[in-house]
């Protein structure tokens, strides 16, 4: 049914919907996050659900403690290497369709702690991330903003065709490698099937002006 007919019908008082719309509407309107906080950002995440910001307005205050019942994983805080396997495992335990918001600088890239030996430089090395929120920590408004961004993203998803979401594509994995503790670092250090950074463009020549002062 095309949009024109639909608006025409709705003017007549007839509301139509497609399966896709209903499916997407259900998913967007009822995103239950995993009760999962890592560090400082978790406090802002809690603050977002509290009275002042009230994430419940979007129907998302149902923080499920068990990954089996959660839809959204808000990676809120620094992911250390010691924690990374558990984060991936939790993600694997969540049922499809599942989404990940990478909240805060640390979860995106290691943030201020990226120089640390035990800090994972971004959770997207191991699991696919839908929305990134920069900030250290992001304000609760920024989290709500990202949440709405995620809703928009879900709403725009097609159930069929090339661009269908990951969970509807049988070829795409829904579980990812859980890294193992190695003697010096995690093994593997990243999941190269989902994380391919752009080629590091470090000035090979003339770098001294930027490299030494």
């Amino acid at each position, binding site marked *: 049914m095309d949009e024109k007919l639909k608006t025409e019908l709705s003017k007549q008082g007839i509301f139509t919907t497609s399966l896709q719309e209903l499916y997407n*509407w*259900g998913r967007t*309107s*009822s995103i239950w996050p995993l009760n999962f906080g890592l560090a400082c950002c978790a406090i802002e995440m809690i603050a977002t659900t509290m009275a002042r910001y*009230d994430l419940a307005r*979007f129907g998302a205050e149902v923080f499920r403690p068990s990954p089996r*019942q959660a839809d959204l994983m808000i990676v809120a805080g620094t992911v250390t290497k010691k924690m990374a396997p558990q984060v991936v495992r939790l993600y694997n335990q969540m*049922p*499809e369709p599942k989404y990940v918001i990478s909240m805060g600088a640390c979860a995106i890239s290691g943030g201020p702690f990226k120089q640390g030996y035990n800090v994972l430089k971004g959770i997207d090395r191991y699991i696919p991330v839908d929305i990134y929120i920069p900030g250290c920590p992001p304000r609760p408004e920024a989290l709500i903003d990202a949440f709405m961004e995620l809703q928009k993203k879900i709403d725009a998803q097609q159930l069929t065709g090339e661009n269908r979401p990951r969970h509807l594509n049988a070829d795409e994995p829904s579980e990812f490698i859980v890294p193992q503790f190695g003697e010096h670092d995690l093994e593997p250090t990243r999941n190269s099937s989902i994380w391919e950074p752009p080629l590091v463009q470090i000035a090979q020549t003339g770098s001294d002006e930027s490299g030494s002062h």
Partner: protein
Amino acid sequence: MTHLALMTQHLDQIFVLTSHWLLSYLPIALQPLCSAILSVAAIIIAFATLFALTTLLERKGLGRMQNRYGPNRVGPCGLFQPLADGVKSLTKEDIVPIRADRAVHFMAPVLLVAASFMGYAVLPIGRNMVMVDMNAGVLFFFAIGSLMELAVFMAGWSSRSKYSLLGAMRAIAQMISYEVPLVLASVVVLMQAGSLSTVAIVNMQATYSGIWPHWFVFTPWGFAGFALFMIAATAESNRSPFDLPEGESEIIAGYYTEYSGFKFALFFLGEYIGMFATSGMAITLFLGGWSAPFSFLTWIPSYFWFFAKLLTIISVFIWIRGTLPRLRMDQLMNLAWQFMLPMTLLNLLTTGIWHFMLPGFLRWIVCSTMVIVPCILLGSGLKYKKKFQIRTYHFSQ
């Protein structure tokens, strides 16, 4: 006037009449079966809708208690929130842990929902609106209610998860312990009514002296029985502050830790339906079922009163949930065996005395004393035994 009376009567009996009218088109041989199907469908639809509304009410009510709005974006005033949750749950992936007992894992939520719905068979929702007027209705209700324990334990055991198992063990211990005071608290009504039929019990309460109804809750033993019944019912339906089996901060999600998607939604549904059923039984036994609270309000349809009372009780549940912290397992058990059980037994005695004393002021005084004094004594005895108190603190110089 008679015209008005007829109209209100018709309004009161509208569902019964509609059902009769529909059935009259069917061959007589099919009528009992179809009547049953019709009633089952009506109950499932009505209470599933109530479930949806209650989850919303709970979320919004808790929100208001916590100085916020609660869901208000999905549909007008967030009215479609439960619908969205339902759609989402239906379309979620269903995960069965690889080492779980698949059959039992699947059976558990189904059994829970089925058992919790079966209790409604004997609940009179309105005048002449009861599916089966069983002469052992109350007994049937409690028998079916104990099926829920089985379902819960099946869920916990079949998941092969430690948290699930802990939750199931807690649930079994709690539900069996509270079954005893629950039944004993309702026995007082049976003593007085002399019948196990729910319909008879309600009919007995649906009479009035002046404007006042003859609800059992308006007697000392009835009030005590009601209070005890409600405490036991809270525990029986795993509501806060007795929500230990799913104590989120302790054992994740208890026995349904490993459930996802629609099976999890079924658990949710089963819990709420079970809660409605026990509340409905409390209404039937103590609050006069579908009868109006004042004689001059009888023109309002009977089913309205039933649901109004049900919603009031649900609101109290929500209110309590928003306020109280959870008990610990041993405290829960202590409450059941050291407070609830003696109180319910004493209440039986009180009811007997009430029955054999002449109506009058003296009867009230004697029975009230018999209920209140032991309650206070037992309560403060427990308090004393545990030595908990409000403390005073000193300050360093």
